[in-house]
């Protein structure tokens, strides 16, 4: 069996996925998730080691490792790198084959990706240097409200009259929320408003592409049920949300790594990347 690992070093968390191909099909054999923290290289190594341990496979049996995410060039043990844009598209296509649009919401960026029939990137748009519309915005809103990040999604689902949040600025949202709290608005209505504000921001980002169904949501924020529903409301259609949505970048990286092992990926650039990065 060919064994490969994808490691996605994000701004907030690092993910690793170990994948195997026995000739009958590709399977995800294990996953690992660690906080990235200040030492990106260590976080990547830790996610990789943990992933191998979880699968009971010695690291030396891993045939190829692809790194992705902002920290991909800090992965000292990897064989090659791909951007998370290509990896999310590939991962989403693997887990939800009808995917034509990916909405990826991570800790510090959000993107919309148009995906071709074989999982290739046709086009993409991302937020700019500003963190508006990202997981960081939700984390700030949760902090101001004194609620844990895990609670805000379910809480927002109980909103009956979601408030209008005027800003999607991660800094200024605090004053908006404080003003609604002072007016005595219910926490669920405030969080409902926060989620809708982000969903609308994401919609305007995605509209810069042609939004084709089926749409798959990926990234850490996909675990937030309130965000998924808010996005479905503004998009007017259901989203695919895989249980591995959070790991999608690592899954895509693992698939590219397996391809490399099978030498089916013919890109000369790929060969160059691979040869330059092998230890």
């Amino acid at each position, binding site marked *: 069996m060919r064994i490969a690992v994808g490691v996605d070093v994000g701004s907030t968390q690092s993910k690793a996925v170990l994948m195997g191909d026995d000739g009958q099909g590709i399977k995800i054999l294990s996953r690992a998730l660690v906080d990235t923290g200040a030492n990106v290289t260590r976080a990547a190594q830790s996610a990789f080691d943990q992933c191998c341990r979880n699968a009971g496979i010695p690291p030396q049996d891993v045939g190829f490792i692809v790194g992705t995410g*902002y920290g991909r*060039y800090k992965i000292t043990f990897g064989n090659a790198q*791909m*951007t*998370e*844009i*290509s990896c999310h598209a590939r991962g989403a296509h693997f887990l939800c084959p009808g995917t034509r649009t990916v909405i990826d919401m991570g800790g510090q*960026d959000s993107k919309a990706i148009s995906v071709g029939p*074989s999982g*290739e*990137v*046709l*086009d*993409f*748009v*991302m937020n*700019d*240097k500003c963190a508006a519309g990202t997981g960081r915005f939700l984390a700030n809103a949760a902090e101001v409200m004194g609620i844990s990040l895990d609670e805000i999604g379910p809480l927002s689902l109980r909103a009956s009259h979601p408030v209008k949040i005027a800003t999607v600025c991660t800094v200024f949202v605090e004053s908006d929320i404080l003003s609604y709290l002072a007016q005595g608005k219910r926490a669920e209505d405030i969080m409902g408003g926060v989620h809708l504000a982000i969903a609308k921001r994401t919609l305007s980002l995605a509209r*810069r592409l*042609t939004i084709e169904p089926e749409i798959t949501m990926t990234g850490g924020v996909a675990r937030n049920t309130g965000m998924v529903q808010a996005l479905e409301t503004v998009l007017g259609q259901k989203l695919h949300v895989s249980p591995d949505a959070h790991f999608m970048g690592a899954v895509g990286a693992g698939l590219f790594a397996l391809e490399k092992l099978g030498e089916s990926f*013919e*890109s000369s*650039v*790929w060969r*160059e*990347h691979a*040869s*330059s990065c092998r230890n």
Partner: protein
Amino acid sequence: MTEIHTNDYRGTIHQRQKDLMLDWYHRLDQASDGGDPPTVSMMISGNCVELLEGFGASPIYPEVNALQLAIRHQSLEPILAAEDLGYAADNCAYVKADIGCMLKGITPTGERIPKPTLVLCNFVGCNTYVKWFEHVAELTGAPLYVLDVPFLRGEEPTEADVAYVVRQLKEVVQLLEKLTGRKFDCERFRQAVSCSSEVEQLWSEIKHFSQCTPSPFDAYFDAITLMGPLYVYRARQEGVEFFRAALEELKQKAIARTGIYDEERFRLVMEGPPPYPYFRTFRDMFAKWKACAVASTYSTVGGLWEFGFRHDPDRPFESIAMHMLAQNVTNRNYLQRYEQIRRYVEEWKADAIIIHFVKSCRLFSAGQGDMRDYFTKQLGIPTLYIESDLEDPRYFAEAQTKNRIDAFFESLEHAKSASRQGRECARTA
């Protein structure tokens, strides 16, 4: 990271360009001692450097000073000085860098920049520029003339537009006669227009070399090297000699099929100015993918000559007016810019377009989101949109910019690979 072998354009021309620009700064330094030669502060967009030759005057280009500082990683200090004075954070960074330099006495080479004989605001399409030159006049105490050049509303300027600009150019001549105490030398002026016409022909031929595969030079990053002499020396014999040498050098590269990489993998059209504070870093992001710019709109800010326009020594004032009105990219309308880019893609055989949005420049960047939609959705040309600034280093996010560029080329690479495989399958079948 892979070591990419680039054949950067570092011929004799590169050194000659440096020498010419240093000579120019040296002349400006000399002018600081007693006003000889006379100097005129002017904008790059549609500049009328030919007119200055009639007085033996030298241009001062605040934009060139600003970009020279940025490329040397020295732009932040003057920008902060201007902000301390009250300039807004989102104001044009060229303006802030220039004003900050005046406040702090900073110059690109360490030599002095003189008080100009005349501050000539020759481009009014950008309101910020008008205010900029008003401030330059106030800070230096030099007289100001605002030359009102109407925006191009249709395909061509009207006769009234041309007459309106010619009338003002003649007013500038009268004003400079008064300010310099020199008589306008008509013959020297005509020769200057003739030199410009020859340089424009040479420059146009050089730009057409990048239609070759591989392109012998990068028509964005390398073109910038040639743009300094184009604006400062276009109307002088030194300019003619410089561009003759450049043409010959590049012709040899084209004949020998020497590109800027060992293998030219992607051909690009670039829209928008580069992020000068990170010029090398930005270039390397494309070099990694062996991507070569074969055409760029930025290289037509000072004049658009590759489609046939030339200054005319038989109609010197009228042709200068035509240049200012219709033959520089910033005074043209947006649909004309679309058409310019579309022709580049088609005739220069480009794979994709890169739009670099400049956060502090509304003039160049407004509407570029729609431009991206037009090229991707209506013409099906892969187009990448990235944002930073041409002068302010604080707007450049290296990791994010690199990420977008890498992802864009990954998708282009995939598309090329799929198309190659499709052709192979078709051959097999």
